[in-house]
């Protein structure tokens, strides 16, 4: 049964990509624009670090690693799980979620995987390159980086699920979902060292953005075992919690009557 599900999701992801590549010229243009816009941001930070060297203990290399991790995590989401978050929020708000409830595969992942944004490849390439040149990824740390990356992806997905689930509990909250996503990106974009201790505690507990930006860098820099264990546990709790929250909310789903085409 399980391998059947994998088979379905493999086909689903392949199809959502195919759907987004239907417009080939647009795909390349988007890819290039995405890389360029990432680079613009990086130049800004480069200039910044050139003037000040470190920001509260973080060097440009640390920052590069953090950005690389964020961008590549984000790209995994845009490439494979883009349906989660803003799209799903819209579907729930407009009562367009019926199709996923009517077919056998897992509702949450079915809806998440059915949209893919090809521009994500641009982010993916940039992210991986940034991590590679940051100097923090060596032969010895490769294993840990891989685990950190998986945790980051899981955390990001969990947050997208939670932000989606809000729409079951509040009406017309799709806009709120989008805004919270934006705040989330915004906080992720700064070196973790600029936040005060209190803010950091909040960012790795209540508003767990820090799990994909602050904590991974600190773990890699200081090789703290306790932080690593915390990250693993927090990721597990967050992931399971978000799925629970989603399915609890699903019971409150109200269907709608709009005319819908997929695509």
């Amino acid at each position, binding site marked *: 049964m399980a391998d059947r599900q994998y*088979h379905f999701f493999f086909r689903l992801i392949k199809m959502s990509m195919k759907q987004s590549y239907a417009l080939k010229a647009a795909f390349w243009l988007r890819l290039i624009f995405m890389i360029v816009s990432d680079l613009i941001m990086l130049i800004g930070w480069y200039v910044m670090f050139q003037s000040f060297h470190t920001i509260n203990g973080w060097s440009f290399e640390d920052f590069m690693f953090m950005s690389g991790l964020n961008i590549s995590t984000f790209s995994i989401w845009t490439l494979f799980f883009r349906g989660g978050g803003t799209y799903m929020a819209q579907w729930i708000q407009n009562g367009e979620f019926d199709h996923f409830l*009517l077919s056998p595969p897992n509702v949450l992942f079915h809806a998440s995987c059915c949209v893919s944004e090809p521009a994500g490849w641009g982010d993916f390439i940039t992210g991986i390159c940034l991590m590679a040149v940051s100097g923090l990824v060596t032969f010895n740390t490769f294993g840990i980086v891989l685990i950190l990356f998986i945790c980051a992806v899981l955390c990001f997905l969990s947050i997208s699920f939670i932000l989606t689930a809000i729409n079951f509990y509040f009406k017309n909250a799709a806009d709120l979902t989008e805004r919270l996503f934006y705040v989330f990106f915004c906080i992720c974009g700064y070196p973790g060292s600029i936040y005060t201790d209190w803010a950091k505690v909040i960012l790795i507990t209540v508003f767990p953005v820090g799990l994909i930006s602050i904590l991974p860098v600190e773990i890699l820099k200081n090789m703290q075992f306790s932080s690593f264990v915390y990250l693993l546990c927090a990721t597990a709790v967050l992931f399971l919690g978000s799925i629970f929250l989603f399915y609890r909310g699903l019971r409150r789903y109200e269907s709608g009557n709009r005319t819908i085409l*997929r695509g």
Partner: protein
Amino acid sequence: MPKEVILVDQLFKSFYSSKGWFRKSLVKTDAVKNLSFSVCAGECLAFIGPNGAGKSTTVKLLTSVLYPTSGTALIDGLNPWKNRCALAHRIGVVFGQRSQLWYHLPVCDSFSLLAAAYDIPDHVAQKKWKELSEMLNIGRLWRMPVKQLSLGQRMRCEIAASLLHSPSILFLDEPTIGLDVEAKRILRDFLKKEASENGTTILLTSHDTEDIEKVCQRVLLINNGTKMLDTSVQRLKTDFLSKKYVRLIKTNGDSVRLSFDTHKQSVQSFLKQTDLNDITDITIENPPLEEIIRALYIGGEAYA
């Protein structure tokens, strides 16, 4: 006595909406109120009622899209809200206004995905598609992107998609909406055949009385979320046909159309007061089903 495949008992579904900015008060709307009915295997049931009567909500409740406020339902022996996945394998659902096909991609891609979703091996799915495409006359659409299909073609593909996993129960929510006469005919013939040959149970909601007349044997009228009437299509016609249309053709070729209500006037008195001189031909017609249903909608409570 055939097996009952749909069993609905005291089903309730309420929606809540909040009003006001500061002192919010919850407004409760009952979309489905105390609904109970059952459908036997192989039966075709039409679900009718005016807009906002709760038809679609009921279909959504029975197909596990919505979670009920209270009440129970068993679809093919399964609780839809606890066995969503198992139920999905046994039912097929078509919502006239929603598409399960991928807009930019060819029809075959959507079908291969559906085959994977329902754990159907590709060769079995291919065989089933061939079978369905012959009946629905959509064989040549296999490689065409969905966006290039006409509404009628798309709807036939939707139905084929819903039947790919050979469900034993088929739910259709306004399947003929917006279709032309020919497309409607193909669809109705197909549904009828599907029910009689494969024993598929069909539950259909529609505003088109011909859908009901051509496909279904039984009608369930609901209004304001409650059941108003549950009868066979045949009985609906005989029981509620008090109005008669009489067409008289005169010798000079003119025709006169008269109508009378058998509840208010006896046939005898009607004939007495009608001038039957110079009449060469007479036809007596029952009103169309549409008119009966309209009368039921307007005076719904009277028949409850």
